[in-house]
């Protein structure tokens, strides 16, 4: 049940992030990213301290390693998108990039053998059509 609550939070905050980014895109992009991510990491640090959950050395090392890797890849993705948008057609770029999640979905199904039902497959296909139409 808690997992679905987190999913709902991720859904709503993801939408709000898009709205704020749309507003922020009217200003200088790198200062916006630099300040946003600094405030974000401070927020995560403050909430982490309040939880006071103890973790082992392996978890600590793994968490920092994944965070760093995700950060570098995120920056490459974001910068490539910015460069592509500065010289290419947004009407083609956005729909292609919005489908990137399906790469993660395919990799997760193949590597982690995630269970698939017919209902789920149809739901995923409908979500793909929806995302193309909404992008």
């Amino acid at each position, binding site marked *: 049940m*808690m*997992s*679905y609550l987190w*999913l709902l*939070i*991720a*859904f*709503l*905050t993801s939408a*709000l992030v898009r709205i*704020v980014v749309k*507003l*922020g895109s009217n*200003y200088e992009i*790198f*200062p916006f*990213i630099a300040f*946003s*991510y600094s*405030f*974000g990491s*401070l*927020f*995560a640090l403050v909430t982490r301290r309040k939880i006071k959950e103890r*973790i082992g050395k392996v*978890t600590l090392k*793994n*968490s920092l390693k*994944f*965070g*760093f890797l*995700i950060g570098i*890849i*995120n*920056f*490459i993705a974001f910068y490539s*998108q910015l*460069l592509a948008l500065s*010289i290419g057609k947004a009407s*083609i770029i956005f729909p*292609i*990039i*919005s489908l*990137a*999640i399906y*790469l*993660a979905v395919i*990799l*997760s199904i193949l590597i982690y053998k995630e269970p698939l*039902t017919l209902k*789920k497959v149809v*739901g*995923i296909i*409908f*979500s*793909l059509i*929806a*995302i193309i139409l*909404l*992008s």
Partner: protein
Amino acid sequence: MDWLVLTFLAFFAFGLQDFLYKVASVKKSDPSLVTISFLLTVASVSFFILLIEGLSIKNLEILLLLSFANGILFSLTTMARLKCLRKLSASLVFPIIRMSLIVVIIWAVLVLGESLSFENILGIIFTLLAIFLLKGEK
């Protein structure tokens, strides 16, 4: 570099980023620490570029206010993704989160007064159908 090559580079990088959320969750990483490390990495690279380019900032107050809101929301959305990916499959989590586009479109219509296109209406219908089919799945 050709813009289509850059687009596919962004496509693969964003896809890999999402997959790494899944890997980090499977490896039982701490969502808060992953988020701190992730956001600090991007902030450091961005500040480094700012130092090199030496950009001047206009409207600092508004930029800080929007950055503050964006930072907290982005931090929350990252931690929430990592937490739900521990129990739920990526094939459920990512499509549902991506369909939050529907909220942005409703906001654009209600707040910005933008009009809904035929494609948008069809997209909303498919979103609702997809959520109906995916609800209850793991």
